[in-house]
């Protein structure tokens, strides 16, 4: 990437280096912007600043021991990453997690999803120059972290799920705390809507910015709230139901316009749907064991290839495992949603104002460690 050449070739343009340390790239992402005035004529994301070779590590240790690594890929959706991986190994080895464990997984995963969306909500509005909402959403998020800390033992990079279940049972305190939190967050939604969502400045900043179409999403593999913002009700929890999701009644929020406002609203409404799922799961929580009876210490995976896809907060997460019959994966590939979602920016943001680039990139809800696995 030779910056001088870019500047020389079209000398009326200049190259602005946004990142790796920039307030609105949310991590060590670097974007080279070629500007004409305030218009960004082309964008080149530069990746790799935080690559930790998780896929290589996976080939060098027993498949079971890779679980903590999954949490480090997306620090905001750690439990959902756990979920996908646990499910992958369960599929491959034919172990079945007990019902109670699946319910606990759903409850904690959905709490994790709300937590991720709340952080995005605050950080995105911070990108747009509203300083206060991040404190409100972090206030709510803190409750989730406290609830999850009690049961999982950590606050951010959880390693709570195991092959065949979860490692600790939830107690009455957890259930009471979660119910309390559901009521609290429900009562806060109207405030968020009054304070932020209806604001005319916000609407002007988001409406019609960063248009996506279902076709563009298919070409780039864009999934998650961005895709649902274009009107496609595609959610792995419904499209390829996993765990006990089919038992719950919830909607998949969609919008049709595909702009930043659409994905903004989709994410906002998803929090409400997640609350519904948690509520139903708590009501129907079955008694029983939390771990499958027989999980061998050395987990031999039969030769073959396995895929497991779950809905992460940012889109579709896929683990693809190629096994050679030993307990170590022969090849593990993680398809992270942000990676595909970010690849669309060059097309989505070309010709945009610098401020719109910030709001479009914010609406992608990037988690950089997930891109640089």
């Amino acid at each position: 990437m030779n910056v001088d050449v870019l500047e020389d070739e079209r000398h009326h343009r200049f190259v602005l280096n946004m990142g790796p340390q920039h307030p609105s790239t949310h991590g060590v992402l670097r974007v080279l912007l070629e500007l004409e005035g305030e218009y960004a004529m082309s964008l080149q994301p530069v990746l790799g600043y935080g690559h930790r070779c998780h896929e290589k590590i996976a080939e060098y240790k027993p498949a079971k021991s890779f679980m903590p690594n999954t949490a480090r890929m997306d620090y905001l959706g750690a439990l959902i990453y756990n979920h996908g991986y646990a499910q992958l190994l369960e599929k491959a080895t034919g172990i079945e997690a007990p019902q109670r464990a699946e319910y606990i997984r759903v409850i904690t995963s959905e709490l994790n999803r709300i937590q991720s969306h709340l952080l995005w909500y605050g950080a995105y509005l911070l990108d747009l120059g509203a300083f206060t909402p991040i404190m409100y959403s972090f206030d709510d998020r803190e409750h989730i972290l406290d609830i999850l800390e009690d049961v999982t033992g950590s606050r951010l990079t959880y390693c709570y799920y195991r092959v065949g279940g979860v490692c600790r049972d939830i107690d009455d305190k957890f259930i009471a705390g979660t119910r309390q939190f559901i009521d609290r967050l429900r009562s806060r939604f109207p405030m968020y809507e009054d304070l932020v969502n209806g604001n005319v400045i916000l609407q002007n900043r988001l409406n019609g910015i960063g248009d996506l179409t279902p076709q563009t999403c298919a070409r780039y593999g864009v999934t998650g709230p961005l895709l649902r913002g274009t009107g496609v009700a595609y959610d792995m929890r419904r499209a390829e139901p996993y765990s006990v999701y089919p038992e719950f009644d919830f909607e998949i929020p969609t919008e049709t316009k595909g702009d930043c406002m659409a994905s903004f609203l989709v994410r906002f409404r998803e929090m409400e749907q997640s609350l519904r799922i948690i509520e139903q799961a708590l009501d129907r929580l079955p008694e029983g064991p939390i771990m499958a009876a027989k999980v061998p210490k050395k987990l031999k995976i039969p030769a073959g290839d396995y895929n497991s896809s779950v809905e992460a907060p940012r889109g579709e997460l896929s683990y693809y495992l190629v096994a050679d019959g030993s307990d170590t994966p022969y090849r593990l590939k993680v398809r992270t949603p942000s990676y595909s979602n970010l690849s669309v920016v060059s097309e989505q943001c070309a010709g945009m104002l610098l401020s719109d680039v910030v709001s479009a990139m914010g609406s992608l809800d990037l988690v950089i460690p997930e891109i640089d696995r």
Partner: protein
Amino acid sequence: MEILNSILPELIRIVICAVCGAVIVFGNALVMGYAERKLAGHFMLRPGPMEVGFHGIIQLVVDGLKLMGKQLVVPAKADKPLFMLAPILAFAPVFIPLLVIPFSDKLQGFDLDVGLLLILAVASINVLAILIGGWGSNNKYSLFGAFRSVAQNVAYEIPMLISLLAIVFMTNTFSLREIAAAQSPVWFVILQPLAFLIYIVAMVAETNRAPFDLPEAESELTAGFHTEYSGMSFSLFVLGEYANMFIVCSIATVFFLGGDSGIPLPYFEYSGAIWFLAKVYALMFFLVWIRWTYPRTRFDQLMNFCWKYLIPFSLVNLLITVVMVKLI
């Protein structure tokens, strides 16, 4: 001797005014710095500064000392003279408007016939300071901030001026004291509500405060024109910003909120000044309030708003005022 006798009182007056001006500028920065952080904290459901002194009341003094103790970092490829000149230029002119602001009918540095023109002329030096600061930093983000600032301040000076001009037509004077005095039965905010609204919007834009803080939009331009500044040179920009806030709020008070008028307090000769400051700080509270509530606008929307709405409306307002003045 003769000359000395005639000049000496004036000299003493200037010295006293300058000292008072410095007290106001620094005192205001301390009060507003603390108030802004404390208010922002409470808007955000957190306590704000709490550590230094009772409820963090001397936090700002400590911060000031820290900033003074910091090294002035000049980037290697920066234009050093311009880089050092910019903060001084941003800070120094703020004393001049304070000379003509009538804090009460008895408290005013100089009552000039062209007080308003003086203030507006001096206030535009600030733009120059930001421009050379942004240019001299040799940083693309700073440059962007500077460009935005110039475009924004030049544009918003027009509706600001036109809305004030309506008042000038009504009172037939540029003298701030006479304008304040002309509002004895009714404040001009009631006679000129549109001009007041336009002025308030333009005032926020002129002081580069959120939601119009595009020159220093930190999510886009890291810190805009003062990205490269540190220590005292940075704090001079901040002092200048708070002083400018004080000045524009003072003008709003003089032009629309009746200046020093208010119920006289017993046993206190300068009760007008108390009322004046109360109104100014109420406006400043408003500025802080909207800063911590609204998201930032986009640059083209900001300029469109000025050229397509504020300027036409202020012109219409001026026209109506002129017709009414002529008829009545």
